[in-house]
């Protein structure tokens, strides 16, 4: 059973998390009116066999969204980190 290291809570079973999908794309600004860029962002994504950066939320724990690096070929988590730009007040 996959385990994910939450930077805040430590190594936890994946059942505590909710998966959201590809984290490797750059999101258009909200004010960006270009349909093609929004279409590509929402509907198109790579499906790599190997290293994949993806969003998970620790819903049964700290509820923080994370960027997890997982090797999809062997289903092994390599790393996890806060999303870029998150301001932490520790």
């Amino acid at each position: 059973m996959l385990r994910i290291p939450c930077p805040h809570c430590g190594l936890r079973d994946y059942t505590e998390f909710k998966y959201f999908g590809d984290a490797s794309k750059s999101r258009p600004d909200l004010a960006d009116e270009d349909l093609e860029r929004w279409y590509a962002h929402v509907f198109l994504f790579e499906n790599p066999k190997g290293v994949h950066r993806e969003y998970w939320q620790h819903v049964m724990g700290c509820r923080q969204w994370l960027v997890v690096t997982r090797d999809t070929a062997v289903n092994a988590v390599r790393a996890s980190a806060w999303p870029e730009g998150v301001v932490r007040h520790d």
Partner: protein
Amino acid sequence: MTKSSRLPNGGSIDRQHPIEFTLDGKALSGFKGDTVASALLANDRWVLGRSFKYHRPRGLLCAGVDEPNALLTWVEPSGVTPNLPATQIELSDGLNLKRQNGFPSVDFDLMAINGLLSPLFGAGFYYKTFMGLTKGAWMFFEPFIRRAAGLGQAAHQVDEHRYDTEYRHVDVLIVGAGIAGVAAARQFVGSGLKVLVLEQDFKPGGELNASQDQATWDIYSKAFNELLDDQNIEIKTRTTAMGLYDDQCVVALDRRQANALKERLLIIRARSILMATGALERPLTFADNDLPGVLLSKALAEYAHRYAVLAGRQILLATQNDTAYDTACSLARLGAEVTLCDARATSAHHALARQAGVNVLPDTVVARALGGKTVEGALILTGAGPFQHVPCDVIGMSGGLTPCVHLSSHQGIKPQFNESIQAFVPGTLPEHQFVAGSVTGALGFGDALSSGEQAALRMMAQWSMSPRMAALPKGAESTPLQFAKQDLLVEKLSLIRRAGGKVFVDFQNDVTLNDVASAVDEGYESIEHLKRYTTLGMGTDQGKSSNLNALMHVAHLRSLTPSQTGTTTYRPPVVPLTVGAIAGRNVGRHFRPIRRTPLHEWHLQHGATMTEAGLWLRPWFYDWAGSDVVSAYVVEMDHVRTKVGLSDVSSLGKIDVQGPDAAVFLDQVYVNGFAKLPVGKARYGVMLHDDGIVLDDGTTARLAENHYFLTTTTAQAAEVMSHLEFLLDVVWPQLKVRVSSITDQWAGMSLAGPLARQVLLKAFEERAALIEALPFMGVVDFEFESTTVRLMRLSFSGELAYELYIPANFGIALWEHLLHAGQSFELKPYGLESLASLRIEKGHVAGLELDHRNTLKDLGLARMAKPKPFIGKVLSNREELVREDRWELVGLKPVDPTVKIRGGSILFYAGERVAGHGRGYITSVTASPTLNSQIALGLLEGGLRRQGQTVIAAYPLKNEQIELEVVSPVFLDPEGARLHA
């Protein structure tokens, strides 16, 4: 004439402890330490079932987990458990067992007639016979096939046993307490590491259980006892490792009944895992090898040496490898007349075997087993023939060894073919996973011991530890074991086929060599296709005794190597796993969490019938209104429309949004404006997904400059919360906003009806000015009995209405306070059914319309979208979502007011053919006391552009069609006079 008998001495059964049990009502006895299989054998019981397809008599093939034939039903007062291999049932007092699959009985089975029809029952016969004829053919035949198929009968009683789940975290997990497993575990004695050893048998020893060699037993027992002395080493017997999962996780079933628990599921995390799972002997392929009395030769040895049951006096062994020689010698020493046919011309063991009194016949195969219901003789063949008839009681087959690679292969590591043992062994395992013993091809006592010790040393490296324990003595030197190569076996098989008869490969599913050949002939060559087409390996034994023989035959037919042919995918569980054990404690009301509102107890005490809304329990209707929902909800609706009602809305999602950027944040989340919402006002808002589809609606109030109170639908509360957190963590981390879920922290109630304000004025006399002044969509907090009441004037029902929120612990107090104040106005509680129905009359969309397929425009809410950026704005204008023919919200009224409308009905324009996907569907239905008929909301191609026209609502499941008129979805008070009263 008896064949088998209990030996006067020997075995590890406890002769001081006799046990009584029954088979099909007949009383039999055995001893503690027996399995049901060994006890039945001791009682000379041979026919233990009938085969799956052909209903041929079947008996024991094996002594262990691989047993495919002797499946029994265990009958207890609490129910039946079918399909239990007799070899896996520990004998205990009062066991009540039944044989399976014979009508009227296993001994006299009418279904054996299937044997005569066997040419029709070849591979894929279902597909060829029943599916091709006509479209309806399969549907016609399926019930008959279903009744005839299967082995045991399923239980119809609820499983009342209790199961539990245990989580274990250990340093070292060793699967298998055989030679290699114990040798490995012993290396950890004194290390301080937490070691867990799992052994599926009730008697550890692995293949030593089939051996009589006292010297090796002594070495093993001494090592085993060293394990018992170390407090950090735990050995669990009767515990089967079922699956290997991600991240060093093994799931095992502890089958020891203890403390009122029948079984325990162990979920184990181990830093290091060793799989010493052993190897199973496989059968030989010759004609009628399924006859009761044909067993594996190692099984004969185990029955003799572990259980002291000699299966026969005249034993014919057939082998193609060296492992059968030990068995031959040990059985001869017990006084049996043993003949050993070796397919190979030479072996290093001939001399020793002859010395022990075994009649060794080289270059000889068994071609066919002979006998009626049990073995009486055999046809053997030396060289190229001719066939010779030899009499015998039992036949023991040794077709080679098949390492148990299941567990090590669960993570997708494909096993590799090993030339020296002519079988597959585990592939290259990832870090921290190891294999040792006969599963790797390290056969023989000395090799298995060394293999275990070396694996332990490699495991220790994880802790930078060195070995502390000296190596174990390896026992007597032994010659390496040889196995016949494929070309010899192919040559012999062609000779064997001349004997006719059926050559079985998979005993449980009745699959023969001919079936395998047919499948290949017909193009189902890939081993995965062959498996499904022939059903080989798909029984409860999952091909433990058949997969490799089939694979070798396919390889031969396709002129491939075994590696090229490949194995089928191994999946957990390794052996059948009780569903109850998987459920553990999560049964009945504990299957899912139950969410109760703060007012739950009150509802139960005041005549509410509760219903499940997702995980929530909510009042469905109250008994003051009626005894069943159909009559009650209409009475409740009417009461709200004419007087006043009180409903529990605590389950709605409530989110506290605070921060200097809260306004900006909500303005970007909702399609409509929230940044300029005045303090003290609430607004109905809709939010979209990024893809332009409606995510949720709710009412959000501004409590202060930087403080909002956001509500969501009950169903979407969790998703909206995650959505907001995603936006704040990932998309706009620079915004200074905090969101908190306060759904459980606040109770919520809806007070609705023409008399609502009067009830409020009576309940909060001191707050009269505040209440009178509160405008439509206004919100105000005021103090009440040392806590806060949040009062909002908004309406879901279309009546003059308020929502009141109070911290959860005070919920019942406020509820009762309102009911007391409302007595003179006949205030009554109303439930979910009427709550959900009132809004239909008012044309409010709710969960049934917000089903993640609809846009703002579809729901008639396009005007809500404001000219500012918001989530989902750009993609809500994509081609697909702005098509002219989209299905849009309409109201529907029956042409004949007496007909019933069914939710989910498919809509068609009047006059067109009622077939296919239609022009839309009905989303919500209710009785309308206002209009005195049923009414509905639906989504229709063309929407309100079709107002006034007739549509057909079809419900094909009940063959119903009714006519409806398309009307405005706002059936009641379109000007809103009641709302603004």
